[in-house]
């Protein structure tokens, strides 16, 4: 005979711990009056390009207001950086823009180098330019392909991902990682180029423009894609400047502003390249600017590979780099042109081995703030296309 188990029914339930979650902000009481429908998209709808939630007010199918709700991927990287040494922060920066990790590495390292007064060998600067331009190509492939997929042209996704795969293979043979590279370090880069890498890179650069022109023809010349993207999500140049938009989002609207040329850093003044600029500010122009930037990046990489031959292999790290950096008390800001726009890192040092404060000026954050402005008046199906054309990467938006 099975004895009935002691069930603690007569015992009082344990008191719940005090969660201390009293809100310290008074929520605005929203009373909605009107015929419009409120639709909640997300937080992880597949076509929202990341963990984003958009609250959309719809009048029929027309978007009257779209409000992005962000922060689902907030990991507190700025707070975590205050708890690590300067070198330990570099892997954290990989996790900011996980489609273009090299940029965050580089922007952070430039800020550290400015703070600590480190001079980087020229060979390392050339390698940084090469990997970052490759990264720009890889990152733009992640914008162009999904732009096709958003409008129903899934084949473009396959073509651009093939090109991205070639770049990622190059990175894998360079530093062993395919997504979070931790390659650019304060004072230089972590490894020199392996044997045969330059030839493989040249092969990639040689075939890439032709592949881009093919995509230009079959995607940007496609009548459905043009109908879905031309005149959609129009952003005018004044708004782009006022809202702090940068990168292809600003250049698609005709704002001719690129830090590689207008606030030159590293060895960029030595290269000959042009900055593609759109004029309509619609989804089509923003996406097409990315495609032509990828072709220009190939030109820069070719010139940088030629220039690399002048420098002795192995000189990739600054002399006299201490194992533990303790820069002067003070602050430093540096920014680079990432695939999404001007990515800046602001560092404050109190003279100790850990940053006192790190702030990442994220281009994706500023570009995403434009979503309510550019999506108003278009249809719900256009909203996804517009969000994709702003190319937000939520690791960088939420930090």
């Amino acid at each position, binding site marked *: 005979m099975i004895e009935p188990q002691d069930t603690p029914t007569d015992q009082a339930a344990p008191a719940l711990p005090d969660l201390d979650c009293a809100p310290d902000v008074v*929520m605005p009481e929203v009373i909605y009056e009107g015929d419009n429908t409120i639709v909640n998209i997300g937080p992880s709808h597949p076509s929202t390009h990341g963990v984003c939630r958009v609250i959309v007010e719809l009048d029929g199918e027309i978007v009257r207001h779209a409000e992005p709700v962000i922060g689902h991927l907030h990991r507190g990287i700025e707070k975590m950086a205050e708890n690590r040494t300067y070198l330990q922060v570099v892997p954290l920066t990989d996790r900011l823009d996980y489609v273009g990790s090299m940029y965050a590495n580089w922007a952070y390292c430039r800020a550290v180098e400015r703070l600590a007064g480190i001079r980087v060998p020229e060979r390392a600067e050339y390698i940084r330019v090469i990997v970052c331009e490759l990264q720009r190509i890889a990152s733009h492939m992640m914008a162009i392909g999904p732009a096709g997929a958003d409008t129903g042209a899934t084949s473009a996704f396959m073509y651009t991902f093939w090109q991205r795969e070639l770049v990622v293979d190059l990175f894998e043979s360079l530093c062993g990682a395919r997504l979070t590279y931790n390659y650019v370090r304060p004072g230089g880069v972590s490894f020199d180029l392996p044997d045969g890498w330059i030839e493989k890179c040249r092969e990639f650069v040689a075939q890439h423009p032709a592949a881009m022109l093919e995509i230009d023809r079959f995607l940007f010349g496609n009548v459905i894609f043009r109908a879905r993207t031309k005149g959609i999500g129009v952003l005018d140049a004044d708004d782009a400047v006022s809202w702090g938009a940068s990168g292809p989002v600003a250049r698609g609207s005709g704002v001719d502003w690129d830090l590689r040329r207008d606030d030159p850093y590293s060895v960029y003044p030595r290269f000959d390249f042009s900055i593609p600029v759109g004029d309509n500010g619609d989804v089509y122009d923003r996406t097409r600017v990315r495609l032509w930037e990828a072709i220009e990046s190939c030109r820069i990489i070719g010139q940088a590979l030629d220039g690399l031959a002048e420098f002795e292999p192995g000189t990739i790290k600054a002399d006299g780099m201490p194992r533990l950096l303790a820069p002067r008390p003070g*602050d430093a800001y540096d920014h680079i042109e990432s695939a999404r726009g001007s990515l*800046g890192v602001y560092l404050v040092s109190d003279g100790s081995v850990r940053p006192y404060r790190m702030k990442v000026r994220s281009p994706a*954050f500023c570009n995403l703030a434009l979503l309510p402005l550019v999506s108003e008046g278009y249809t719900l199906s256009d909203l996804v296309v517009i969000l994709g054309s702003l190319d937000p990467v939520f690791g960088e938006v939420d930090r």
Partner: protein
Amino acid sequence: MDITELREHLCGQYPDLCPLFSIEFGDGVLLVTSDRLHAAARDLKDLGFDRLGMVTAVDFGEEFELVYRLQSREMRAGIFVKTRVPRDEPRIDSVNDLWAAANWQEREVYDMFGIVFDGHPDLRRILLTDDWVGYPLRKDYENPTIIRRPDYL
């Protein structure tokens, strides 16, 4: 107008602040008192600083330092505007009316530091949830999930 002319202009406009204006690596740094921040920002915007690159804050114990980075496409220059607000009453005028970019950036500073921007149209938390307690980037913020890395260095 280049950066040295800008310096002369600002010295004429803010004579008491002139010694504080320095040019570091082509970037000017202008320190103003918190009540003059909005006027200084307006003045700089009129001078051609059409982009607000960054708004952030740093916790210095008794005071918070607010850091604004402005950029001019025409001058190809950047300038920092810094001001300090007391910790017990952190308030500052919003610059959202000058640059729309301040909208989200000031919300983020409010979210992380609890600094109130007067005149901001929509001052709510942005990255954290609305019922979050405390301001995480303040140095005295405590949360049991934050574990200090051991000093094994």
